[in-house]
């Protein structure tokens, strides 16, 4: 190396920096929020501007039950992460799987709704502006839930084979940040699509 092998001899003070996993996830969440904002704006902009039917009022039903599922999964994942931090691996695994089940139920609900819209009401993404914006916005969210479920399941598999221990709790927390975000976005999507948009 160079002549200045140790050029800075001061004694280290206490030096703590934020966790890079969390910072990166926060960055991703900011970027994702911007993406969702644009889709939400497009949705609101086109509310009531479709040239042909069907309209949201005619065909949408408020998915209260599935919404409760998704929102409560935020609680379960929160406690799952807490349990892991306290090294309670069994409780972690139980809550984690419950989260996956709740998320899966929500996805089932979305699937049901789409099936109904397509086969009963003939509403597809190309039918009218409502179809275009509705499937895009809800679909974008559903994609994020699905991606989340895949990651949660991978962790679950690792946990089942006993590879998830207390040391991994920071990573699990990063994942749970993502899941909270997906839930929070649903609150916005729900308000926009099922409350304001009708």
């Amino acid at each position, binding site marked *: 190396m160079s002549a*200045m092998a140790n050029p800075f001899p001061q004694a280290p003070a206490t030096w703590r920096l934020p966790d*890079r996993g969390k910072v990166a996830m926060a960055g991703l969440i900011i970027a994702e929020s911007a993406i969702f904002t644009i889709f939400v704006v497009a949705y609101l902009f086109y509310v009531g501007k479709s040239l042909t039917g069907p309209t949201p009022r005619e065909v949408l039903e408020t998915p209260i039950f599935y919404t409760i599922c998704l929102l409560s999964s935020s609680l379960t994942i929160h406690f799952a992460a807490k349990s892991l931090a306290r090294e309670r691996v069994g409780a972690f695994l139980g809550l984690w799987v419950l989260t996956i089940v709740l998320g899966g139920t929500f996805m089932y609900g979305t699937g049901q709704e789409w099936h109904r819209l397509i086969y009963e009401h003939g509403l597809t993404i190309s039918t009218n502006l409502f179809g*275009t914006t509705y499937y895009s916005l809800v679909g974008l969210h559903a994609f994020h839930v699905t991606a989340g479920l895949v990651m949660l399941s991978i962790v679950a598999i690792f946990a089942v084979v006993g590879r998830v221990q207390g040391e991994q709790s920071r990573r699990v927390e990063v994942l749970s940040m993502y899941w909270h975000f997906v839930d929070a976005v649903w609150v916005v999507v729900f308000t926009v699509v099922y409350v304001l948009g009708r």
Partner: protein
Amino acid sequence: MSSNAITIPGVQIDEKPWVDTLHEWVTTVDHKRLGVLYILYALLFLVVAGVEALIIRIQLMFPHNHFVSPQVFNRLFTMHGTTMVFFMGMPILFGFANYLVPLMIGARDMAFPRLNAFSFWLSAMGGFLLYFSLVGANGLYGAGNAPDAGWWAYAPLTARAFSPGHSTDYWTLALLVSGFGSIGTAINIIATILCMRCPGMKLNRMPLLAWLNLVMAGMVLLAVSPLTAAQFMLLIDRYLGGHFFDTQAGGSAMLWMHFFWIFGHPEVYVLIIPCFAFMSEIIPVFSRKPIFGYPVMVAATVCIGFVSMSVWAHHMFSVGMNSYANSFFTITTMAVGVPTGIKIFNWLGTMWGGKIQFKVPMLFCIAFLFQFLTAGLTGIMLGSAAFDSQLTLSYFVVAHFHYTLVGGVVFGVFAALYYWYPKITGRILNETLGKLHFWLFLIGFHLTFDLMHIPGLLGMPRRIYTYEPGRGWDTVNLLISVGGFIQAIAVVIFAANLVVSYFKGKKAGNDPWDAWTLEWATSSPPPAYNFASIPLVASRRPLWDLKHPEDQ
């Protein structure tokens, strides 16, 4: 990279077969190598898009010229603008951020080296996709083989009805893919700066370059994401029959404009802020003084970042917004001039009372200051919505933004290349060639872009492949084109300098400019692990403390 790689390349006896070397570069996750890859890739595209610009200029030399057909001309300016912004500007600045940020904050690498490599290859993919359109795009009879809707791709020109074939799809996909790369890089830069600083490197001790790149990365997150969203919508329209921007089914052309410029305006600051960062590092060193008003510089940058999120519709003053909206965007636009002015004044304050050394990097910086001042002031003219209703869509705008992008960004990048080349390669770029490059580029730049304001004032719209004689545009256009060629000669000299100095240049040593930031504390080029022992810092200018123990 083994430790013998510290020795200067070229002198080093490389026994590895070239395939291995290539393999090492392609699979590298080292921030310095990725930085170099970014820079080389961007320089390649500078030449490609530069040649496109030259063809544009040949076509516009004379009224009713027939050098290229209108179809080709439209593809040329679309490809030129897209390439320069997305595949020259962004990558070269990301390259510098990659190379310098870890070194300057005393880290061994970026926070996520593999994400870093992934992001680079995504960006590279984007560029290749864009140019692959030349062979892959014409899907239907009569469809073009390169994107031709302009770099803003206004709806409904991108709708299937007006853009059959696949050229627009390649454009969208290229930007989508490279957009993911940019978001990845931005996240990486933020995480690196916040989480990887060496002990003692508090936020208020970070070099301004790190600060400014932090702001830039934040803006990328907030700006590129809307573009990504809009590109998704365009793809939905083109492939799934959606109607977001389909004016025939009630869709809105205005919506795309807003979405594009919500990205597009912050984007131009994404390009200029890293160049501000270069200024903030280089000017102090060659003035032999610390940066003037460090906290104010940080505050002004953050302020630019915020305000510039609310000015986008100044690109839409002619689309028919009401007078209140136009007034609102006038005031926000002009407001950006205040923090930007503060930056210019602080660089002035840095030079004031210093001992300025006119090394090549500093020459580019000084030219930057004068040119950015001019560019900013023409920006203020455009910002006045009523004045802009005459200037917009004319060559005056083209002059304004080349003044910022060439006079600002390209000059800033040249300054940075001359300044950090010794660190990257271990050799100093030849000064004589450097001065020649500087003067020729300066003259070419001014000939081209000073004059370009005039046809704008005389009513010449942009994006026209030819024009009518007798409107006062003829001579000016000829001179503008000549300037373009002078710039090209200068760029050739620069390229020669890069190559010649790599093999024959003067050895740099660790610290050729007698500078103060951490990257100069390690060898040139730095070893793979950057620092043998992680440094500890106690001030903003760690090497100054070393060199001037009496100041402690």
